[in-house]
């Protein structure tokens, strides 16, 4: 029982992180229909920047943890958005009207590029930060197993929920959201209506990068160790989460992230950890066999 609740908490946290990265995947997919394989590496870049700025700010003598977190979040989000913008501008925009696969390949190239860029400029060593938010709540003890809820876990889940609500509101309520959805439906028509499609797409990339940046900061704070190679695994998991939930759907991405977090968490605690990725992918395949557009994706009716 104790272990079960503990894994629920752990799975929720992990799922929230996957979900945050998956949101960026799904937004980009929604608007230009491409799998942005470099998204995981944008997240990695943000985590590395988080390390730099946490170290810098503590060297400058900022000791208040909330102030530090807010400052780091603001700086990293701003800088990562510029990275997101640049990635779109250089590697994807020139390919916007070509085949579906061209941007995919240039995204793979971008992923390799970013990863090695960070390795060269920041070094290959793993980058630790001291534990910013130490400590945890001891919830209860069952059969000698004390269930802990770490403060960072609370932070991650709260931030994620807030962002999900905020972004859903942004997409459904604001004029940017309307433009964004219009671009998803029909880019040409949207352009004819006088909406700046390029700008909308750029903004979407920046928002996606901003979400990745939040995930990057959270991961840095929670796990305390990052390096230049963390983007790939996270990217694949988040992509899986986005597809599982129905690619293009914001709540779907979050749901997909949570499901994958839970599968991993419970599978490795109760079954064999080495097969947890197999379990994830098998469940993904099964879900897609019965719901070809993911859990919350709109079923695509091909217009004849």
């Amino acid at each position: 029982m104790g272990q079960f609740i503990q894994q629920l908490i752990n799975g929720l946290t992990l799922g929230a992180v996957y979900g945050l990265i998956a949101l960026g995947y799904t937004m980009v997919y929604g608007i230009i229909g491409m799998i942005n394989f470099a998204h995981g590496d944008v997240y990695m870049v943000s985590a590395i920047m988080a390390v730099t700025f946490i170290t810098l700010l503590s060297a400058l003598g900022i000791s208040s943890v909330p102030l530090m977190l807010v400052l780091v979040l603001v700086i990293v989000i701003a800088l990562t958005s510029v990275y997101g913008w640049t990635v779109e501008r250089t590697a994807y925009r020139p390919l916007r009207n070509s085949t579906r696969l061209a941007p995919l390949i240039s995204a793979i190239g971008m992923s390799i590029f970013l990863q090695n860029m960070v390795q060269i400029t920041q070094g290959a060593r793993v980058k630790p930060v001291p534990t910013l938010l130490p400590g945890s709540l001891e919830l209860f003890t069952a059969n000698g197993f004390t269930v802990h809820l770490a403060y960072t876990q609370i932070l991650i889940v709260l931030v994620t929920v807030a962002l999900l609500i905020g972004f859903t509101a942004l997409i459904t309520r604001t004029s940017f959201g309307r433009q964004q959805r219009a671009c998803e439906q029909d880019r040409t028509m949207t352009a004819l209506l006088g909406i700046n499609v390029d700008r909308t797409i750029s903004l979407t990339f920046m928002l996606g990068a901003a979400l990745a940046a939040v995930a990057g900061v959270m991961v840095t704070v929670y796990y305390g160790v990052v390096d230049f190679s963390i983007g790939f695994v996270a990217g694949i998991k988040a992509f899986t989460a986005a597809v599982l939930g129905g690619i293009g759907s914001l709540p779907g991405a979050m749901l997909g992230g949570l499901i994958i977090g839970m599968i991993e968490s419970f599978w490795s605690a109760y079954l064999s950890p080495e097969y947890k990725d197999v379990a994830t992918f098998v469940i993904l395949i099964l879900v897609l066999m019965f719901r070809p557009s993911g859990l919350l994706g709109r079923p695509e009716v091909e217009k004849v």
Partner: protein
Amino acid sequence: MKTAMKKLLPVAASLVTLISASAFADYEVAIAGPMTGEYASAGEQIRKGAEMAIADINAKGGVLGQKLKLEIGDDACDPKQAVSVANAMVNKHIVFMHGHWCSSSTIPASEIYNEAQIPMATVSTNPKVTERGLKNIFRIMGRDDQQGEIGGKFLASKFANKKIAVVDDKSAYGKGLADEIAEGMGSKKPVLRESITAGEKDYSGLVSKLKAAGVEVMAYGGYHTEVALILRQAQQAGLKLQVLGGDTLSNNEIVGASGGNADAVMFTFAPDSRKNPEAADVVKRFRDAKVEPDGYVLYAYAAFQLFQQAATQAKTVKYTDLQKALAGGTFNTVVGKLSFDAKGDLKSPGFVVYQWKGNQYDVLK
């Protein structure tokens, strides 16, 4: 067959330029290992050590009157790239190789060096490296079965009353080592035998499994990054965990990465050469150059000392003579006296159990 085959013209053209670029005057020696990719920090250690060694040897007049020129091969710990690097090195007519680092790269690459008759000194610890009857390969570090045995015995005696889990990361190195540790523990059986996937961030599943099973000591086969994460997450979950691992945990990244939990880490490693009186001078110069000579740095340095001494004895770098010199001789290096048995393994591998204290590691009595 209309749209038929193609390939050669550009390859040929580009490769001609590549090959003609390599010079002949000096002795070409090489290192190979993961200069990029996940394990790039090990590659960096090897490179730093090798560069210092080459500089020192050349400053003293080189080998047999010839300067050494260092070639660096990057295999990213990918067996296929390792083969490619090996072929490239053969083509550069290197006379000595220090590498590769990952056992999975060393094994396929060594067959090519063997065919091309190039002697090599490696720090790969997988037993298979020297079990294939190749004459050109010399291991300047112990083997996983040796360090596993020492680690396992240590655990069984020191933690006789505690529950022990054996965990690996499913790499050839990690699994091999973990298996050897489990065997070395003898009659003391681990309560859990688990594997994790390296390269992830979240090991809370493993941690809560350890916690539920009441494990206090984890024997780990794998790399330091995962150990650091597991320790941090164990602390968060309120689990006091001690870890015993192999040589890879000597990497000082673990100090910062484990967030102050590094003192719980023990590992088996060859005797610390930094404390070697003969190494004092070299260690000082590394530190002056802002390089901490831990991990594989001094081994890379030693590998080229080995080459220099063997070549001087043999008075040639021709394979047959050099190989004979390496196989028969005893060499004084910064990592101690090296001599090899018939398989090419160290005669006196000597593993010691260390424990991290602050940002230093120390022999555990």
